[in-house]
């Protein structure tokens, strides 16, 4: 554990924007010994991934290393020739990307991609690599390890792909693996399996690793040391336990504090009140394949109902049914006690106005060629008929409501805004219709924690001011805890449990709710170990097979 493997000194990276090189990383030092795991954390834009890639002597198009050295086992990867670097990559330093689904080539089978590095680096023949791959699949507890490699990427689930990618990184038994947010795109229950698999295999082969993530609780499980980055600068670095106990810098402390936001619970709804939205045994199908079964729950005025579940559980489909984009095959939806036409095309303008939506990806939900004023002005004009200066005045009011300075933002394009600001525009666009009910579809999951908290606070404030009702779709239980009044847990297109928030976070739970709750990583570095011991390893494996 003492031999130095990686020594980065004064690493500077620049990125090109508008034909000008601007600094992204301003001189980072980093040391890593053999077999050591370093956690690299920070918000988006902190330069984590850029540093991770630069560790391999690699920069994305439009970026360049402008200074410093990356000394890997005696070779400076900044000045090394392409051929020297190629000989290192894959063989001695490997990479595990955030989205395994996008990072596996769709045209080739998993095993062929697995064996590519060892055969191309002439380490061992293909047949031998294949056997080795199956062994790794086995160790990573992939189901049917002898055959899963002969599938194509689209035939394998996200969690399995992420483990297959870890296996692929291991194929040459590298000295160092860069894990770039490997579990960010996964559900919490899947995340545990991948975390456990990665941790085990890194330990078994005594591989050094740099683990990049924005999730503190995750990095606490994985890393020996943690380095915090902020806008290309190092904030601090310390042993994991020391940093968790006593973060030195204010920024680090603020990261720790994010999870503390929680709205006070509202009193229970008195019986006999007509809910704003009521789903009555709604079933729906995409084509011939059914996806929702008998979904029924109520959303009351001025309250927030969180709909939680893993991807594929039918959360977003439920939202599509309420908006009328996907007419249910059975059941119906009532709004203030009156049945809504199932198809949005049959709804009146007023019925359409009452139900608005905010999307997960503000980036793709805003027209990149329209100014902010046009984006918000369009629904203002459509629903309230305002034009000219009256419309502009209303847009300015809306911008003020979402806490953006109207004068400064009204003529900008979405590309000139940050992620959190874009999401605020999405909120303003929904408010422009003056609805009673808004569906928030994973509105914070693409945002950094600090920014996400700002959005949640804004939504809570708007609810208090305007008496809005929210249906809050999320897979993040911390968000549920922060904002919801009632919780609906969904799995495989069915509601498995529902009730007031206080009850949902108190045992006894439905077994699935229990699995969800217990899978949310906690800051305790021993959390994963304890959890795995508690569940029993075999149990985890079974859960994996059952779910895939």
């Amino acid at each position, binding site marked *: 554990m003492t031999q130095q493997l990686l020594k980065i000194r004064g690493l500077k990276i620049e990125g090109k924007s508008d034909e000008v090189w601007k600094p992204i990383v301003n001189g980072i030092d980093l040391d890593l010994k053999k077999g050591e795991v370093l956690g690299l954390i920070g918000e988006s834009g902190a330069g984590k991934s850029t540093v991770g*890639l630069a560790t*391999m002597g*690699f920069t*994305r*198009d439009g970026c360049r290393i402008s200074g410093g050295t990356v000394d890997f086992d005696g070779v400076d990867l900044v000045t090394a020739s392409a051929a020297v*670097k*190629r*000989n*290192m*990559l*894959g*063989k001695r330093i*490997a*990479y595990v*990307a955030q*989205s395994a689904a*996008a*990072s*596996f*080539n*769709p*045209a*080739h089978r998993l095993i062929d991609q697995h064996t*590519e*590095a060892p055969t*191309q*680096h002439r380490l061992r023949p293909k047949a031998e690599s294949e056997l080795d791959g199956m062994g790794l699949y086995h160790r990573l507890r992939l189901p049917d390890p002898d055959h899963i490699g002969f*599938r*194509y990427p*689209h*035939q394998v689930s996200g969690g399995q792909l992420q483990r297959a990618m870890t296996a*692929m990184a291991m194929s040459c038994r590298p000295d160092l693996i860069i894990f770039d947010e490997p579990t960010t795109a996964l559900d919490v229950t899947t995340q545990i399996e991948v975390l456990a698999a990665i941790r085990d295999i890194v330990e078994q082969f005594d591989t050094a690793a740099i683990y990049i993530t924005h999730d503190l609780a995750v990095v606490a499980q994985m890393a020996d040391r943690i380095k915090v980055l902020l806008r290309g600068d190092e904030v601090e670095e310390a042993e994991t336990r020391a940093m968790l106990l006593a973060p030195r810098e204010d920024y680090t402390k603020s990261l720790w504090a994010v999870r503390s936001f929680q709205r006070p619970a509202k009193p229970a709804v008195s019986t006999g009140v007509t809910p704003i939205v009521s789903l009555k045994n709604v079933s729906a199908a995409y084509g011939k394949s059914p996806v929702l079964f008998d979904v029924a729950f109520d959303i009351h005025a001025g309250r927030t109902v969180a709909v939680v579940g893993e991807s594929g559980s039918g959360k977003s489909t439920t939202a599509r049914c309420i908006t009328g984009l996907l007419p249910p095959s059975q059941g119906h939806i009532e709004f203030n006690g009156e049945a809504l036409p199932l198809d949005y095309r049959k709804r009146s303008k007023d019925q359409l106005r009452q139900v608005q939506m905010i999307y997960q990806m503000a980036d793709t939900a805003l027209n990149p060629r329209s100014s902010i004023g046009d984006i918000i002005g369009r629904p203002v004009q459509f629903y309230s008929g305002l034009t000219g200066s009256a419309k502009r005045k209303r847009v300015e009011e809306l911008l003020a409501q979402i806490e953006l300075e109207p004068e400064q933002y009204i003529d900008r394009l979405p590309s000139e805004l940050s992620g959190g600001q874009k999401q605020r525009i999405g909120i303003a666009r929904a408010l422009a219709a003056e609805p009673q009910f808004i569906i928030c579809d994973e509105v914070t999951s693409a945002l950094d924690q600090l920014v996400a908290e700002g959005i949640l606070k804004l939504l809570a404030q708007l609810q208090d001011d305007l008496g809005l009702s929210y249906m809050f779709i999320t897979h993040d239980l911390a968000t549920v805890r922060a904002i919801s009044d009632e919780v609906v847990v969904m799995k495989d297109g069915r509601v498995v449990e529902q009730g007031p928030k206080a009850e949902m976070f108190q045992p006894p739970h439905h077994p699935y709710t229990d699995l969800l709750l217990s899978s949310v990583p906690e800051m305790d570095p021993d959390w994963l170990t304890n959890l795995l011991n508690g569940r029993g390893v075999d149990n985890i494996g079974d859960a994996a097979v059952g779910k895939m």
Partner: protein
Amino acid sequence: MGSIFQIILQRLALGVITLLIVSMVIFVAVNALPGDFAQAILGQGATDEAVAQIRADLGLDQNYFMRYFSWLGNVVTGNLGISFAQMNFASNMGGDQLVGVVEQIAPRFKATMFLAGVTAMFAVPISITLGVLAALYRNSIFDRAVNITTLSSISSPEFFLAYILILVLAVLNPIFPSLSNVYEGMALGEKLNRTMLPALTLTLVVTAHMMRMTRAAIINLLASPYIEMARLKGISPMRVIVRHALPNALAPIINVIALNLAYLITGVVVVEVVFVYPGIGQLFVDSVKIRDIPVVQACCLIFAAAYILLNLMADILSILSNPRLRHPK
């Protein structure tokens, strides 16, 4: 695999329907040509009686619908009719052996297919190789040179390219013959030798499209995470492009190849004329001149079928190049 067969059957059915609609368009368009065979053949001094006589002989006096459906019925049974010119010749000269349109077109069509095939054998591999290399060395001198050369050759008129090639490869350096009068029964080697110049001319004409699409489709994919992954595995740049990018770029490339092959079958009359190559294009133009409707219609139908069939094949191959459809969950 069931779904693939279903898709292919759907496309086939769609192709047949398209062909039917095209047959109507052809019929209407050909009949809308000013003048007809009788006037064209009798020239200035035609008397009304003579014109009417010829029209009656050829069935031109019947109404449109009758003529369309009898033509369509014959086409379906493989009978493309008899050339007006042949019939007229026979009735005047008393010959009794009428050569049908099928027999008339068949050798021409074979020659055209032969030329298209030889051209494709050059052009497709050359274009894809150049496209891959241009993508590999993108923005280099090589890339620019390839782009400029192929673009200049596609921008020049075909006859100009043809005469340049004749000058260089037949006159200054007598390697290939400048006349390409191939006929049936000619030895393959000799046939190839005579086809070489028109094939080279056409190669110059079609390479640019295919090469540029290959380059663009590959470069389009180079920012994908799986390409980055391949690079980070230490794979050589050439292998990254050939093994990781190309298989995923096939669909647009296949479509452009199909369009160019269709062009080789239907649009090469200028090159045929320059090299005196006995392809279907010349026959078509001659027949239009004398309003020989059965031949014109048959040629149009063949051209349309070639386009539809090649596009159909491109569609099917594109579908097959998608592993999601080849290997469903």
